[in-house]
């Protein structure tokens, strides 16, 4: 069938998901916290910005929430090299499909594309050099609904009806999300944009509290998590100029 970019790449000799030699003991950067939940207008996706390798902090300005096209976002947890490569393949696959077939790839088709990449990557994931467990979130224009999905490293896809989390810091916030959504003042899906952003900042700050591999907010360095909103009108990133006052007023504890 025409319009398959990944197939085209393979025909051109491109290899993906080839495992490195097993048993090599390298510290590969892989810990993180990413989350997505549905709010009133769509879906919010957020991620911290730390990349670690073993005990070392590799980088503190990683962007783990990647815009794949106008209406979908992939948040990555796991080995960054593989994850970024996957994001690049997906981005080009969706563009290529739209331009060749003269119609947008369906949301389900997009989910399958990511699942397929993860499956191709199983060998590398099990060898320990390429495990990725991403979140895929977006706005399904056909159904007029926001959607969130999370994947395991083998490529199984699960729908997060209200929210989805991944990464080493995720066990901490999974409980909080459940509590918030069930007994909070209002369920997540009724929150307005600003309220949703405040909760996302608080959640990531909590994750950083208990997970050394998740980076928190560093106000001195003007370093804030990445928060993106996906609505019917597309993907939008919350600028630092908005995150900063929100953090100061609603998240930082004033003693």
């Amino acid at each position, binding site marked *: 069938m*025409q319009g398959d*970019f990944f197939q*085209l*790449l393979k025909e*051109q000799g491109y290899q993906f998901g080839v495992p490195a030699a097993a048993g090599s003991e390298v510290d590969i950067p892989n810990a993180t916290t990413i989350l997505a939940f549905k709010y009133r207008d769509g879906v919010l996706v957020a991620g911290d910005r730390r990349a670690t390798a073993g005990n070392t902090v590799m980088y503190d300005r990683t962007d783990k929430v990647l*815009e794949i*096209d*106008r209406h979908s976002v992939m948040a990555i947890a796991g080995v960054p090299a593989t994850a970024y490569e996957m994001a*690049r*393949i997906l981005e*080009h696959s969706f*563009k*290529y499909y*739209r*331009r*060749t077939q*003269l119609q947008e790839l369906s949301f389900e088709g997009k989910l399958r594309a990511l699942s397929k990449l993860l499956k191709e990557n199983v060998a590398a994931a099990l060898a320990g050099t390429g495990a990725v467990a991403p979140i895929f979130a977006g706005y399904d224009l056909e159904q007029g609904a926001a959607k969130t999905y999370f994947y395991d490293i083998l490529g199984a896809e699960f729908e997060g009806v209200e929210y989805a989390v991944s990464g080493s810091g995720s066990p901490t916030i999974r409980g909080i999300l459940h509590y918030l959504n069930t007994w909070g003042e209002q369920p997540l899906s009724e929150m307005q944009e600003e309220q949703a952003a405040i909760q996302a900042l608080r959640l990531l700050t909590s994750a950083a509290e208990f997970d050394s591999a998740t980076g928190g907010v560093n106000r001195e360095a003007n370093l804030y998590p990445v928060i993106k909103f996906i609505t019917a009108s*597309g*993907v939008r990133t919350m600028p630092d100029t908005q995150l900063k006052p929100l953090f100061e007023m609603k998240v930082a504890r004033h003693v």
Partner: protein
Amino acid sequence: MYEEPYKWVEAVGNRRQYLDEQFKQGSPVVAVAYETGILLLTVSKGTPKLYEIYDRLALGGMGHPADLEKLRFSLLEMAHVEGFNRSPSDVTGGRMVKYGIAPVIKQAFEEVFKAPFIVKILLAELGQKAGKDAFLTINYDGTFEEGTHCAVLAASPAVEQEMVTYLRQPPTEGWSLEQAIGAAVRAWAVGDRAQRRMSEDVRENQESKADPTRARDEKNDAAALYSHLRETVAEKTIECALLDRQQGGFSKYRALTSDELGRLLPRDMKASLT
């Protein structure tokens, strides 16, 4: 039969004649820069003739739909593989044309035992800044030309020249989208009218009643062009696409919906179309 060189030259000459004939009924394509991007416009009967190729590349075509489709796919393949392996900013119109499809079209044209591509192609590339846009056209024999500000496709070089002259009459820089659409639709009419005139002249020549002065009487004023459009566009659709620098995201291509086009077309013409 074509082993002798002069026979080959003759065969290529025949092929030129055959191809020229194929484009006579075609609909011209106009591409012109405006304030924040590039506008492409044509009038089509059913099959679309304007396409998105890459983040900043758009295609306009004349000729056989199946041939156009084949070349469109090879452009898409090339652009996306290159954009993935290197970077999107390495996917430039110049490279796509010079090393990509122009040689393919030329080869098909000169292989006289095989069918040539019945296509003329226009590739518009949105520059990072205004004034940096590129316009490339490829003829059915693989020759290409590169221009700035505007480019057109039409049945013959003479008609193309007439359209470009019309487009350039007022300075084309800094046009609003509305102005650009007005100019493009009139330039299309200039081209379409010239093509019709061309085929009529041929017919009259055959009947040996040629009157060389008649054609020159036609005026390129707006009213005359709108009245030509009124007669020709009625059962077809005006197709219009933009590469707009102001559009968010990486992909800058957008097809105008019929509603938008309805709002943006010159008022004098709308009255005549409804």
